[in-house]
């Protein structure tokens, strides 16, 4: 049983990952999962509407679904969870219901006061309906705050701006498919159809300054105004190009699609063509299908909804197979949630890895379990990362979010290799910790919305993204691996007796080897960045903050290597320098972006800044621990004196030359 345990445990978790990859079943009568896969254009790229729903919820709610308490038919309160797509369908097609869903996260107490919300500390999520009465007050505060430089805003002002933006996004989504004041989309289109003939005739007459039917013109104008405003507000472009072969980029908003035939007629009438009043407005058939879906959904007619949806999907299959595939694949990617599963598995690997140091008898069992779990976590992590690369058709790192995913991945690979070599649980614990932390960082970075945004022209080069960015990021990974190994060394050494001389020696050579690796990659990556800059701006080096950050890592590595070659640092000193590497690397990775200057600046990240300060403080504490004289280290107190350190290879110092 003891021998089987690691395999059984890992097998069970593998099943858990696989279960998440099973094709999802439609929960209700409406085929919401088919709807979720529909391709739309948002943020400059084709994506399934499911991604729009999930990313919008992340921005508003910091979660990818909505959960709330509901009073059921039996009068009992119970929790209900609404998937992102179901929420978005409500918002687009049944906005009155959606307005009661608690989708806005508000934590700041003063902001709650401003909005007249209950001061209950546990209440975090609020609905549009709850916020509506005080929107004017929020608007005033947010506008005032927006005029302040983002770096100088208070937390209250930041919260107000963020909520304001969330509310705008909400309003835009609400008006994307059906203008807010329209109850029944299909019926409203019929009304427009009826009003169009007389209205356009009146317009033609007014143009020739003859007598005209003012009432008919006004009636038409009233309906048109609704769609004008919807066209302006709409967020994703829902309506596909009428002729995908001729104009594959011709996606448009619902409002524009409704107005298209009317505008065409008005243009011709204005040009003097008085025969241009059409018999009937000819809308793009896909628009009418969406109108049928919207009306059926609002009226609770699942059969009619599914029929219109199927008809639209058939058209898409026949005319835009590539867009359909993109929608389907990205939906699958969202659904699998591989990064989330990898994170959970890393936590288990970390726990089992630590356990090995305190359960001597079961060392082999727990070590194997930790190793297998780490490998499984890495498999899920890799699956997610490569899937993402395939979706984007890009190298692994394209923005801060994906750099976090990749830093974690690189560290886990390095940790796994070290573990396979040394089998002392050091590699596995380090890798699981770094993997877990970077996933948390990545998740927090993803709260700003779409993480697969398009690349700006200057960055749009797969060659340089694949070389410069990847090498630099591997350099980050290696620095954090060395830093994490050093932390393990110090914490185990100072607080426990588990850091025996052999482990000490092993860890020291691991740290040294990894620092060499980090030097190579950081240097080559920095230089490649210089060459890219020379290719695109004409200067190899411009002292841009991000460039300086990369240079700092290289300099720090050089300091470590030379200090060791000079024989100035051994065990604990080397570890202190390696932990210092964590500070340097985090400054280079995040810190310089917060300065808000230069070509690499991504804007100021208020909450991230606090975390960075805390991280740096914690590393300074660890460095102080590392510098404690060894007589205070628990591992050195076990009776033996300083073990003979493996002397470094004779340094090429001039004194010896």
């Amino acid at each position, binding site marked *: 049983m003891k021998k089987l345990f690691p395999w059984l445990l890992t097998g069970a978790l593998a099943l858990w990952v696989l279960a998440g990859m099973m094709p999802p079943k439609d929960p209700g009568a409406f085929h919401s999962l088919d709807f979720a896969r529909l391709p739309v*254009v948002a*943020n*400059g*790229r084709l994506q399934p509407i499911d991604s729009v729903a999930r990313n919008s919820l992340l921005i508003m709610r910091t979660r990818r679904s909505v959960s709330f308490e509901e009073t059921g038919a039996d009068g009992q309160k119970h929790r209900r969870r609404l998937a992102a797509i179901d929420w978005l369908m409500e918002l687009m097609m049944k906005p009155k219901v959606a307005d009661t869903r608690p989708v806005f996260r508000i934590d700041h107490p003063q902001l709650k006061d401003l909005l007249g919300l209950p001061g209950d500390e546990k209440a975090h999520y609020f609905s549009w309906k709850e916020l509506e009465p005080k929107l004017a007050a929020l608007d005033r505060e947010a506008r005032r705050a927006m005029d302040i430089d983002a770096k100088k805003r208070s937390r209250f002002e930041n919260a107000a701006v963020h909520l304001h933006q969330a509310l705008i996004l909400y309003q835009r989504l609400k008006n994307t498919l059906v203008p807010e004041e329209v109850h029944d989309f299909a019926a409203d289109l019929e009304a427009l159809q009826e009003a169009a003939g007389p209205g356009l005739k009146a317009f033609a007459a007014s143009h020739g300054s003859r007598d005209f039917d003012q009432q008919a013109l006004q009636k038409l104008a009233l309906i048109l105004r609704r769609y004008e405003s919807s066209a302006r507000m709409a967020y994703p*472009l829902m309506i596909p190009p009428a002729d995908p072969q001729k104009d594959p*980029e011709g996606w448009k908003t619902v409002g524009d699609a409704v107005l298209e035939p009317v505008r065409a007629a008005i243009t011709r009438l204005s040009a003097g063509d008085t025969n241009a009043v059409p018999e009937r407005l000819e809308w793009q058939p896909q628009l009418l299908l969406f109108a049928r879906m919207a009306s059926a959904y609002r009226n609770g007619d699942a059969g009619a909804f599914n029929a219109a949806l199927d008809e639209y999907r058939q058209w898409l299959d026949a005319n835009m197979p590539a867009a359909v595939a993109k929608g389907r694949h990205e939906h699958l990617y969202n659904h699998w949630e591989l990064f989330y599963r990898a994170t959970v598995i890393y936590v288990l690997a970390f726990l089992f890895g630590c356990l090995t140091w305190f359960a001597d008898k079961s060392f082999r069992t727990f070590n194997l379990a930790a190793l297998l779990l780490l490998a499984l976590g890495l498999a899920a992590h890799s699956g997610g990362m490569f899937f993402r690369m395939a979706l984007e058709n890009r190298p692994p790192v394209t923005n801060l979010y994906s750099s976090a995913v990749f830093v974690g991945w690189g560290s886990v690979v390095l940790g796994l290799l070290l573990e396979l*070599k*040394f*089998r002392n649980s050091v590699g596995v614990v380090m890798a699981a910790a770094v993997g877990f932390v970077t996933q948390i960082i990545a998740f927090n970075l993803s709260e700003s919305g779409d993480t697969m*945004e*398009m690349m*700006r*022209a*200057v960055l*749009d*080069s797969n060659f340089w993204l694949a070389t410069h960015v990847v090498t630099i990021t591997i350099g980050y990974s290696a620095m954090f691996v060395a830093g994490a190994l050093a932390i393990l060394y110090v914490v185990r050494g100072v607080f426990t007796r588990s850091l025996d001389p*052999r*482990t000490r020696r*092993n860890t020291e*050579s*691991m740290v040294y*080897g990894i620092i060499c*690796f980090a*030097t190579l990659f950081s*240097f*080559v990556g920095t*230089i490649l960045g210089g*060459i*890219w800059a*020379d*290719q*695109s*701006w*004409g*200067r*190899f*080096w411009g*002292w*841009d*903050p991000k460039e*300086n*950050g990369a*240079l*700092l890592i290289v*300099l*720090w590595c*050089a*300091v470590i290597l*030379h200090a060791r070659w*000079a024989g100035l640092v051994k065990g604990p000193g080397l570890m202190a320098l390696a932990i210092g590497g964590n500070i*340097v690397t985090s*400054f280079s990775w995040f810190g310089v972006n917060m*300065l808000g*200057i*230069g070509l690499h600046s991504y804007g100021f990240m208020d909450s991230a800044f606090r975390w960075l300060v805390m991280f740096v403080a914690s590393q300074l504490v660890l460095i102080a621990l590392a510098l404690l004289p060894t007589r205070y280290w628990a591992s050195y107190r076990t009776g033996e004196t300083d073990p003979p350190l493996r002397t470094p290879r004779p*340094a*090429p110092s*001039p*004194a010896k*030359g």
Partner: protein
Amino acid sequence: MDAKSIVRALGSLRLTLVLLILAAVLVFVGTMAQVKLGIHAAQVRYFQSLFVYAELGGGLRVPVLPGGYLIGGLMVINLICAYATRIHRPRGRWGLLLVHAGLLMLLLGQFVTDLLQVESTMRLKEGQRLNYSQSSRKFELALIDLSDPDKDRVVAIPESVLQRQQVIRVPETPFTLRVLAYWPNSRPVQGGSDGRAPEVTQGQGRQFRFQPAPRTTRTDRRDIPTAYVEVLVEGEPIGTWCASGWYEAPDRLSHGGREYALWMRPARYYKPYYLKLIDFSHDRYLGTNIPKNFSSLVRIQNPQTGEDREVLIYMNHPLRYGGETYYQSGYDENDPTVTILQVVRNPGWLTPYVACLIVGIGMCMQFAGHLRRLFSRKQEVA
């Protein structure tokens, strides 16, 4: 102390360490200073200097840190001395030798680049033809002899001269300029004179008023200077002009039957050939303002060589021609037919490429050994 021990001390590993740590500190402090000073000013103060000074008020300056040039220079000396004293250790360590040789080349190459690189921009509208690029930071006071209808004769006075000299004799013209005021950055103001600006008797300056402004720290802004000059002929003043970078057109002045133009304009770099913009295209991603791609189709016309050909310049694909490199750098928000090209003259552009290749090879040789040992050493834990 004999020469040998001095060389040994200069080449010591401890000095290397001190220099590396100082370099790391300098880079960190210099980066943080960019927030206040802007990238350019911080670069000059921290990296292109021998010492970094702290202002103590009252004009007192104390060096607090060695600057980039000093640290870089000492690193070069340290490296050379280190190898000089270790020359009779030929075996092994070829990797390290290559790494350091490459680093030496990189440091020297960047120093050369720092001294010789000239950056400017060329702003072209479709159909327009130019034989000069303009500095994006420096201005010059140009005095242009317009009397020849085919050719303008230009005398350009750089800002540094305006700043230093009170009286400037303009060569090839009858004029002498007396600089009454020179403001490196200025802004136009409404209303009458506040007594700070000298009285202007000629040109556009009679309608506009300027006042000095603090120098900008932002990379997307530039200083716009204003100078007040009295023009003298044979010691006799003929009027006072205000020459400002804010003007869109030059002032005229005539003397002895000749027409001249006086203009504070971005410094120009003339070339023996023309570039003509045929077409500029600028795509954005669907439904957003994110630039997707931009490219300029230009025609090179060189009367000296008889060249007349079209080239496409786009992101990451610059044009290298006549010792200069042209990059697609920007566009005009308001005019879709305008392209902005970055023009760089850098005689040392090839050195980092060669240097990095050498360092890369050296590091691979050196560290491959370490890594192999790390993973092949006999397992120590049972």
